Structures are given as structure tokens and as C-alpha cells.
């Protein structure tokens, strides 16, 4: 299941795709009551996994594998490790309306949340008085 978020004229469109079917959820800007972000330990988990791979591949040096080969193998995990650290704390974002709370597929990092809040603040201020919302 792949989830994507799109901005509409008067609503957010959440698309959950299985590849052959798509489910849609619309959240009218006008109806958004609050956004809740829950900190998760996703960054720590990813750091541990990528760090473990770096360590295991690094152990190949003890088996006299040329350092160039080890460096090439470690490169993608090193990039993953660094990018994960730079992206900041992980989170899950939820949007609430009168009738439902929906988990949004983005943002997954706390330092991206202010962009969403700023965007929604502008949209909620500019949203028309009536809108449609479907579960």
C-alpha cells in the first residue's frame, strides 16, 4: 500500500494505492480542527540498521577484502546513515476533522512539519465556507 498526499483547491487528497486500485480520502481545509505530530524513534531505528550494515561490511576488512571494495559496498549505507541523521527527528502526522482522524503519509520528519502548518494556515484562512469531505 502506497500513500501519497496531494493539495486540492479546497481540500487535501490522500491517495492510498495498491497498484491496481486507488482509495481516496478528502479532507477539506475548512474542516481541519488540529494537526497532531507524534515523535517516533524512526531516526534511531534507521541509524541502528544502517550503522549495523556499515559495521558488518567493515568487518570484511578483517578478511583482507580490498578497502576499495569495502568502500564501494559501504557507500550506499553511509549515505543512508548520514541522510537519516541530517533529516532530523522522525514523526507521524495526523490530521483531525469533526468526523475522523487521518494519518498523513507526510511529513515524516519533525523539521518538515512547520511547512505543512504554514501551508494549512494559509489554506484554512482562504478556504471557502462549504466543502465536501468523504471518509
Amino acid at each position, binding site marked *: 500500500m502506497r500513500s501519497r498526499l496531494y493539495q486540492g483547491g479546497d481540500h487535501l487528497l490522500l491517495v492510498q494505492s495498491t*497498484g491496481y486500485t486507488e482509495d481516496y480520502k478528502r479532507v477539506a481545509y475548512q474542516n481541519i480542527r488540529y494537526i497532531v*505530530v*507524534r*515523535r517516533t524513534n524512526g531516526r534511531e531505528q534507521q541509524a541502528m540498521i544502517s550503522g549495523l550494515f556499515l559495521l558488518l561490511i567493515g568487518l570484511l576488512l578483517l578478511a583482507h577484502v580490498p578497502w576499495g571494495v569495502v568502500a564501494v559496498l559501504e557507500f550506499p549505507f553511509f549515505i543512508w546513515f548520514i541522510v537519516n541523521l541530517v533529516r532530523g527527528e522522525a514523526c507521524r502526522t495526523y490530521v483531525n476533522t469533526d468526523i475522523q482522524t487521518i494519518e498523513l503519509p507526510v511529513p515524516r520528519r519533525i523539521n518538515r512539519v512547520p511547512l505543512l502548518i504554514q501551508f494549512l494556515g494559509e489554506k484554512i484562512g482562504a478556504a471557502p465556507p462549504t466543502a*465536501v469531505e468523504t471518509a
Partner: protein
Amino acid sequence: MAAASFECPKCHTELEASPEPAQLECTCPKCDSQLLAWFFPPLFRSRPVGAAATSVIDQSEASCFYHPQKQAAQVCDGCGRLICSLCSVELGAEHLCPTCISAGRRKGKITALEGSRTCYDRIALSLAIVGMVFYAFSIVLAPIAIYVAIRHWNSPGSLLGVSKNRYVIAIIIASLELIGWFFFASAVIFAHK
């Protein structure tokens, strides 16, 4: 402003919300989740109540098609019937009656109410590609791929925008597979002769 609350998304504990400050950082007392919350004005507003339908007093007044004892307040933009404020459903700029809403939803004519769609173009293309990879099955899959592509050529695809490219590619691949079977069958027949 009315007192309001928000919910911890993990354990669903109700937590107090206040209009000032509009941003709150807290820890859920039940599950210890660290939460950041942003509140928007609709949280502190009372929920809107639908307009009540007014009873017909004079027989000369237009009445609702579905509730003859209620005054007509709108004309349905879908079917043109007179409807009371109870029956009138505001959908964007339109006012529709419940029958038009349900019919539009069933037939997929009201995009704003659509909850899901099937991507037939992807199904047709997948059938054609699977037939190409596992060629023995293509004698069955290729006709199905062509059928799906032609049958659903005009069916609504993804809301995110679609083109007919996948259908065209599926038909081309499936046709080539069938042509391959035709040559194979011809070769077998001529070999026996």
C-alpha cells in the same frame, strides 16, 4: 470560545486544547508519547447545525418532492426537483437531492464523492507484461489484456490524471504475443504437412 480537546493518536486519550497558544508541546499522560499539536479555529467553533425544513402553510406554496408537507427551499441542480432545506445537500457550488447524490456516487459522476477507483490500464498492462515474461500463459493472458483495454478504454482511471498510453502499450504487446502464437501455430501445421 468553547472548551476543546484533542486526542492522542496512539492511545486516544483526550487532552485539553486551548486557543492560546495555538501550538502545544506535551507528553501524553497515559502512553508517554511526545506530542506536538497545532490547533485551528474550527476546533473551537460549535459544530454547524443543518437548517430545519419549514412546514407548508398555504397549499399554493411549492413543496418538497420528497416531503410534501415541507416548503421547497431549493431546486436540485441534478434533476430539477424542488427540495426542502432538509433534502438539499450542498456540494461545492451545487445543491443536490439525496437521490441525485446516491445516483451520482453509484455511477461515479460526482468526482468529489468517489472513494476508490480501479486502474484498469495498469491491469491490462500487467496482464500483457506477465504474458510476455511467461510466454506460455500469453495465449490466455493476451486476449484478456486486449479485452480489458478495449472494455475499459473509456472507464474513469486514476483521479491523479491518466492517459491512454498504458492501454495502447498493453494492446500492442498483447497483439505481438498473439501474432507470435499465430506464427508458431502456422509453423507447426506446415511442419506436419
